[in-house]
């Protein structure tokens, strides 16, 4: 498998269905990595039961792929994931976590992604859950000097309960863009994200776009903390969608936080919660769209703009 032109990790319930390493990219089950590489223990918070360890040591010209699914009823996943990208490498990754059933699944993931000096990672993370699932991903990104991260988390379909924590530490001249997008109906979501600008001339941006539809209760706290001379910007945008007659009103709370501990740091933020206007709906419906088509078009526009 060392010469394969891709590298991937695929887990269904608790079983690893496929694990494909490539030249320069080692992939192991997390418990195996814990045993095999003692140095990984400083990154795992405790001995992992399941999950992946991806170690990128050489430049590859294909995206890394991970997919973790729940298929069985009442499955409770507890993943401990670790990814290490060595210095100067430029990597992209597609991660998908989803459920392929209609039961009550639980997906807990604690992950750490280490980008060493001058490493670069473009990571697209997609979540797609069933209405009765409970999902709790917690990811820490540690960026070395001049490392670069573009992280995009997109939740296409929300579970019953969602608790997302994302935290990024940036060293000197490291750069980060964190884009979190979630479209929630009947989801109780707690979202926390934080940029810790620790290194001189580091810079980071958080872009949060949340849609709260019928029955959703969404609370998001986004924070940027400056500990050195750095630049940070926070952009929190929410969209409330009125439910159909008699439906449960959605709730959306956005809390932007800026904390500055260096007089030369530049931190800015903007936050807004909008509502789909009846004028926009009328306009699109007068073009022949149904109300649902018009609402979906406006929401897709909001999430993709």
């Amino acid at each position: 498998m060392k010469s394969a032109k891709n590298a991937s990790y695929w887990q269904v319930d608790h079983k690893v269905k496929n694990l494909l390493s490539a030249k320069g990219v080692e992939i192991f089950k997390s418990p195996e990595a814990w045993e095999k590489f003692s140095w990984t223990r400083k990154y795992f918070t405790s001995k992992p039961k399941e999950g992946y360890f991806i170690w990128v040591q050489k430049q590859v010209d294909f995206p890394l792929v991970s997919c973790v699914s729940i298929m069985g009823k009442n499955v409770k996943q507890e993943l401990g994931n670790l990814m290490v990208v060595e210095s100067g490498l430029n990597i992209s990754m597609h991660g998908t976590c989803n459920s392929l059933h209609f039961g009550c699944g639980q997906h807990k993931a604690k992950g750490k992604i280490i980008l060493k000096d001058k490493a670069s990672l473009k990571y697209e993370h997609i979540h797609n859950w069933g209405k009765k699932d409970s999902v709790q991903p917690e990811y820490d990104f540690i960026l070395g000097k001049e490392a670069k991260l573009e992280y995009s988390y997109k939740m296409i379909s929300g579970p019953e309960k969602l608790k997302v924590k994302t935290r990024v530490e940036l060293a000197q001249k490291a750069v980060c863009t964190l884009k979190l997008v979630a479209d929630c109906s009947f989801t109780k979501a707690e979202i926390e994200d934080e940029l810790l600008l620790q290194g001189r001339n580091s810079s980071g941006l958080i872009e949060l776009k949340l849609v709260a539809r019928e029955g959703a209760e969404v609370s998001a706290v986004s924070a940027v903390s400056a500990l050195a001379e750095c630049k940070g910007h926070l952009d929190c945008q929410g969209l409330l969608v009125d439910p159909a007659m008699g439906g449960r009103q959605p709730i959306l709370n956005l809390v932007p936080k800026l904390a500055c501990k260096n007089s030369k740091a530049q931190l800015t933020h903007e936050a807004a919660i909008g509502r789909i206007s009846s004028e926009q709906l009328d306009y699109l419906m007068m073009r022949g769209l149904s109300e649902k088509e018009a609402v979906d078009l406006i929401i897709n526009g909001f999430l993709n703009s």
Partner: protein
Amino acid sequence: MKRIEIKKLKVSSQGKEILKGVDLSLGKGEVQALLGPNASGKSTLAQVIMGSSKYKVTGGEIIFNGKKITRLSPGKRAKMGLALAWQNPPAIKGVKLGSLIEKISEKKIEKSDSSSDLAERDVNVDFSGGEKKISEMLQIVSLKPKLVVFDEIDSGLDMKKTKTVAEEIKKELVEKGVSVLLITHSGEIMNFLEPAMTNVMVAGKIICSQKDFKKVLRTIKRCGYEKCKKC
């Protein structure tokens, strides 16, 4: 059979009566104009013809191609062939004009098309007044309607641009048998489209309907809408 018949239409919004018994009818392929001072109810009539959720019909009815449409949703009315070019269309962030046109008409805008730059931009976001008119025209034409209400399509346009818009309406709609109701404050566009009937609305009622649009324009220019009321 008339294309559209509006009978004794009464409309209110937030408890205030805006239209107080409007009667109006248009034949197939006919062009008519509706003139009136600000806040006389012209735009309300346009919105109500299309079924806007903002207004409540408290009396009368609207019949389109022989069918009562007074209680139909805007989407159903549009599917039947009714269309409205808005005076102040809302901005829709993140939705490209080109993809909206594709969605409503299943027609792609060709790259060579002069409007292709506009098609790449979000619908009505930072559009100039002229660009909004072009955008409305593009959408209207792509819907292949049977009746179009133009709400102040000539507002903010100079004479040359008004002429261009009028020629486009004639070529793309009137010559293809589409009925057109022109709502206009200034009346300039009427010189190019020569409506068969000109209606004057004041305070929520049509107070005058005249075949000679030039006569109506002259009277309004000379005496204003108040005198027109007494005519």
